[in-house]
């Protein structure tokens, strides 16, 4: 689903985003990106969305080479990627319903099917009663669920989440994570950048750890912190 080959991204004055980054994320995987702030997690997500362009290296998303993807096709790429952010990024002037519907309007979905799909996905994320509320009228956890609903309403093959639980309390966070797992079960590839140690340790999924723009660990069923062989043996 996502292939990075020797990708280098350097910001203007010499701030390293990603350094010689190579990795492969398969279809239907559930992957955590971990690492301290500034280690390159967000850079990686922005590269996949083609919000940023790498200095060198090759990025493939769903078999498409982003380097040769024309500018006018970028919106089409993004329609196939659902996005969830730490700050939710909801349109403040639209109701919960219209925020989700917007993602469908964008792809030119017929009105009739919008009327069917939006309530469907809202009840899936448990927000059927909040349809006509505005983002500022609901809690952070609820806003994040709206954001997940918007990301998934098109049933994209890939879902990216940048610190999805960063702004919400741990209990609500569990709900969000369960939602993402359910989405993953439908076959959607899910990539989550996170600081949430407990969450990663509990889930035991594939972990990619970044450090100063380099991939320092790629572990199946990993935990948040690196457990070195020696320490592991000692335990």
């Amino acid at each position, binding site marked *: 689903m996502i292939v990075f080959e020797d990708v280098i991204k350097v910001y203007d004055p010499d701030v390293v985003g990603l350094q010689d980054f190579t990795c492969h994320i398969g279809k239907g995987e559930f992957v955590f990106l971990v690492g301290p702030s500034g280690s390159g997690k967000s850079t990686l997500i922005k590269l996949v969305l083609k919000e940023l362009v790498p200095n060198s290296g090759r990025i493939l998303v769903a078999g498409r080479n982003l380097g040769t993807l024309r500018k006018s096709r970028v919106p*089409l790429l993004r329609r196939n*990627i659902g*996005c969830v952010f730490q700050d939710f990024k909801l349109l403040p002037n639209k109701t919960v319903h219209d925020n989700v519907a917007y993602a469908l309007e964008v792809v030119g979905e017929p009105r009739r099917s919008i009327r069917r799909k939006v309530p469907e996905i809202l009840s899936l994320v448990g927000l059927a009663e909040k349809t006509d509320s505005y983002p500022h009228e609901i809690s952070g956890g609820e806003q994040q669920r709206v954001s997940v609903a918007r990301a998934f309403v098109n049933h994209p093959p890939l879902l990216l989440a940048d610190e999805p639980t960063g702004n919400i309390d741990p209990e609500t966070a569990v709900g969000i994570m369960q939602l993402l797992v359910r989405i993953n079960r439908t076959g959607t590839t899910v990539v989550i950048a996170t600081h949430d140690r407990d969450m990663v340790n509990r889930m035991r999924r594939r972990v990619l750890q970044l450090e100063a723009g380099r991939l320092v660990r790629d572990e199946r069923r990993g935990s948040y912190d690196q457990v070195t062989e020696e320490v592991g043996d000692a335990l």
Partner: protein
Amino acid sequence: MRFSFFLSEAFGSMRRNWVMAMAAVITVFISTAILGAVLVTRDNLNQGATSLKNRVMIEVFIKDSATPQQTQALERKIQGMNDIKSYKYISKDEALRRFRERFGERIVANLPINPLPASYEIQVKDADRVDSVAQQFFDNPVVDNDPGTHNGVKYAKETVRKMLGTISLIEKGMWVTTGIFAAAAVLLISTTVRLSIFARRREVEIMRLVGATNWFIRWPFVLEGFITGLVGAMLAAAFVWVGNWGIANWIQSSQIDFLSLRVFRMWWQGGSWPLGLMPTLTILGALLGAVGSLVALRRYLKT
């Protein structure tokens, strides 16, 4: 793409950001009203200038000793001239009647004979040509010149020259003013639009993230600018129109008869407006709004 969706997006955002929308409408209103006022003033001045030019007249006085044949020959000569719009023969009796009307019975009553000469009043097509037309009568034997002068041909030579100079100066000045205000209008409007889009750059960012194409994002903004410009410019056009006719009516119907006002009356007759200017102003305003939105959006839509 769905037009009704864009339209409802545009109206929705104007309702939500109504303070900004009002500011934009007022900006368009002020700048197009000023522009319209300048254009209308210019129009009126032009009309005044034209009517002044039309009043330029040459008087050719005829010797009392001229025979009817000579007078007829002079008339034929006048008829044959290209630059002449109209002419009128004023007989000695007519001249006396006019004189009496103007200065009263008493002065005329004691005159033993009629001292006033007969004359032709000639109106020229183009005030610029008045000199060359007048010159053609200078050496005519029928014309009542004092020896060695051309005082049998009377026309406001200096006045015409000065008037033409003033008119062209005013016209130039008005063009410059129009240009300045048009530029100011464009700047004001684009600044307002940029501010309102800057306030909503997050919205634009989100739209792009969910995969909206640039035109999908642009349309509501462009429509919003178009509507804003349309409303502001229509208000301005109505304002200028009412103002123009108000001034014209007030001056024409005013009972006060100062000399200055009489001059002004000639200058401000209402112009050839409103047929041309009104739709022009409105369309201009609407386009300004739409283009302003497009330009202001450009920096947020770079991929």
